[in-house]
């Protein structure tokens, strides 16, 4: 089984978010980048396929050269090789078109991606890839088993889970549950050394036109001070929630 894991390179979850250039650009100053948390769950699940079912893993990012350390980290965790499509990932649809071109070219059986990227929160790239390459697609996946060509999956639905069946080739957008937090791997020294030797191929984009474009960014309005209620005056809290906030 040939697996492609899509890796989005995103600011660490603790990052302070600021904008520059007249609020038209994200301020990367002092920002630490990581593998998008959802993609990390998928990469770990891919590692199990590799170890138990002999799969090969390619990791892929659409981005400029600054994302290479993130791809190297994925290689250090255990992916076999990496591809970087040399394009600025500004728009979901065009990123999906770039990835679709790689998928067609490489004939992957299973494409794993995250439910959403925590920077732009589009939640769209995986489904778009699936449609573009005409693979079956499951979103919000919290469990997957592959047996030959058949795939059993679990996805999260409102208030529960749904079990689904399908066949390879597939695109699956995963989240926590596909593996657990405790299963995530920290690259060890050997992995880091080996990652340096593994192939990281840079390919030029198919260059599709962007469908969307950010005009400007804003930060949320600063929050007013909290109204504290004394712990022996619960009636006051109920009064405020009923008469002032009007939520109960």
């Amino acid at each position, binding site marked *: 089984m040939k697996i492609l894991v899509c890796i989005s390179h995103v600011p660490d*979850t603790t990052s302070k978010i600021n904008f520059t250039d007249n609020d038209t650009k994200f301020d990367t100053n002092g920002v630490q980048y990581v593998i998008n948390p959802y993609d990390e769950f998928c990469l770990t699940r891919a590692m199990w396929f590799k170890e138990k079912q002999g799969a090969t893993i390619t990791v892929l990012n659409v981005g400029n050269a600054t994302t290479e350390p993130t791809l190297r980290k994925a290689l250090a965790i255990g992916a076999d090789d990496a591809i970087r499509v040399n394009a600025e990932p500004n728009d*979901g*649809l065009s990123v999906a078109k770039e990835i679709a071109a790689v998928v067609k070219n490489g004939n992957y059986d299973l494409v794993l991606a995250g439910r959403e990227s*925590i*920077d732009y*929160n*589009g*939640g*769209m*790239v995986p*489904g*778009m890839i699936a449609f*573009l390459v*005409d693979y079956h*697609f*499951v*979103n*919000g996946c919290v469990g997957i088993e592959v047996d030959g060509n058949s795939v*059993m999956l679990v*996805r*999260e*639905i*409102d*208030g*529960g*889970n*749904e*079990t*689904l*069946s*399908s066949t390879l080739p597939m695109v699956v957008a995963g*989240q*926590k549950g596909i593996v657990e*937090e*405790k299963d995530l791997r920290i690259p060890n020294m050997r992995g880091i050394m080996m990652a340096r030797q593994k192939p990281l191929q840079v390919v030029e984009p198919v260059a599709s036109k*962007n*469908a*969307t*474009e*950010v*005009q*400007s*960014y*804003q*930060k*949320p309005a600063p929050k007013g001070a*909290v*109204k*504290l*209620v*004394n*712990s022996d005056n*619960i*009636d006051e*809290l*109920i009064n405020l*929630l009923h008469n002032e*906030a009007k*939520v*109960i």
Partner: protein
Amino acid sequence: MSVLVFADAANGKFKKSAFEVVSYGKKVAEQLNTNLVAVTINVSANEELFTYGAEKVISVSESKLTTFIAKAYSSIIKQVSEVENATVIVLDSSIDTLYLAPLVAVSLDAGYVSNAVALPTSINPFTVKRKVFSSKGFADTIISTEKKIVGVAKNSFGIHENPVSGTVEEMSISLSDSDFGVKSEKIEKASGKVTIADADVVVSAGRGLKGPENWGMIEELATVLGAATACSKPVSDLGWRPHGEHVGQTGKPVASNLYIAIGISGAIQHLAGVNASKVKVVINSDPEAPFFKAADYGIVGDAFQIVPELITKLKAFKLAQ
């Protein structure tokens, strides 16, 4: 030309978000000087959408769709949008709609903006404000394709009545085998529980509760308020509560009217996922807990003392209503 809204339903009943997107779609149609059309799948009470401004409802009944199948649903929306010559398609942010939206977008080669929080600020260029960086920022985004898809963030626009006299038209849509490449085998749902996605009120608790055996009072508080229960990430990682309750940046997003956080410190990743709630109440024994900076109301104190008292007082309050 028209604006098309997909009004999502479960078991034949509209979700609340359906009324929100119809309300939103109506305003967009007014901005564009055109008509609003809503499409529904396997719903009988289509007239309910007239209240929110849908002049025309396209009702699709398909016996093959006993459960939600994303590809088939997306195929229906695409075909209806072509018949109705829709230039803007408005979708909600339910789990199912988030699943089908990218499929609709590619099938129409349409630019798609998800997490929209307000009406388009401009029609030409077509510009919508969306949440980015897990609610730590907003981006005014231009959609430049001929066809445009707007996904409205839950509870960001609200439900607005705008009664019209409308018509319901049945439309039959052809689906192909390839629309059924993913099959539903089994659905497991906690019955009778309010889900986080649907809840007006969410009662959430964290590691401050010390152990799973102390969740009785959280569930009771939720019952009194008709609320859904939720938890912080470590609580689900420790197995104290099911994963489905984990909220925050890497869990479920919450956008309820009222969010009550009990024994939760308010880490940046937790806040990122719950900040969209309108009113936040924090109960925490540590006056320095970061959550107080993000909250509207707070009580500094011991949850084991405050929550039982809150339950008793709320019961009395509800009886008096």
